């Protein structure tokens, strides 16, 4: 029973922040500066999600994540489809794991 209550609590506090913008956003007419901030969120969020997290995938070997990340960056510079970019970084990591 305790576990179920913990799960329900986790579910509630996770859903609330996700829900809040859905409830309130269309009640406001946003000024231009706020719209620019909104448009910038994906780039800012992805920057923060990528670094330094990518180095911590394997805490003993930060270079492993770095290698996967660099290959992903190189492949996306070639304008490859996102699935191929992912596959490239996954294969890089598997290959390095296999070699060392």
């Amino acid at each position: 029973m305790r576990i179920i209550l913990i799960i329900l609590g986790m579910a509630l506090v996770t859903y609330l922040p996700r829900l809040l913008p859905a409830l309130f956003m269309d009640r406001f007419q946003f000024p231009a500066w706020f719209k620019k901030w909104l448009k910038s969120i994906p780039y800012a969020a992805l920057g923060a999600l990528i670094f330094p997290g990518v180095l911590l995938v394997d805490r003993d070997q930060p270079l492993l994540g770095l290698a996967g990340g660099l290959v992903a960056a190189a492949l996306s510079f070639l304008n490859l489809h996102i699935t191929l970019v992912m596959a490239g970084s996954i294969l890089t990591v598997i290959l390095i794991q296999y070699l060392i």
Partner: protein
Amino acid sequence: MKAEKPFFRGVRSGLPIALGYFPIAIAFGALAGQAHLSWWEGTLMSLLVFAGASQFVGVSMLLSGAGAVQIIATTFFLNLRHLIMSLAVNDQMRRFPAAWKNFLSFFITDETFALLTLGDRTEGVTRTPAFMAGLMWTAYLGWVSGSALGGIGAEFIPPQVTTAMTVGLYGLFIGLLVPPARKSSGFALIAGASMLFNWALGFVLDPGWAIVLSTVLAAALGIPLLGEEM
């Protein structure tokens, strides 16, 4: 060729996320088992919470004997970043019926947010409830089914594969970020600044707060950097 229905196009877009989630979810299910959660309790957590990192942390805290309030509070702070992401996703859902907005907001994760805001943006197709639902539910299915399998004891995924797939999800983020960052130095600067902020703040704050603060601050750079046409 007959035009693909938005829902199935969403499913196709969400497939890379689902494939990335699946082995990580198996690892989660297995860890939940070690923390003495039954397979359905672990699956229930994935069904109701659907936030990978916080689920791993929550279960690890259970293993170390943490209290309920402590676990729930940690979950809250760890997932607070979704508030910022939800702002961006809901900006795309402005014209959706309220019930759809409230429902689909449940499925906002780092990965679904990234694909919905920077992935396929075909006019008239991708900003529809059907497309978004297809993408989000595919990711959800990958996460929940993997958790169930892992909980049942299907530990056939070696840890090296989990590591590789985690890097794959970073590959997803990088692959989504690089093309727009190449086109616009403003976007590149925002992303680069956010990386720097997050790295520096990581020394003084826990990761949940560092990501939230870096995102809010770096996105503010967009106010002077981006042109009025944005």
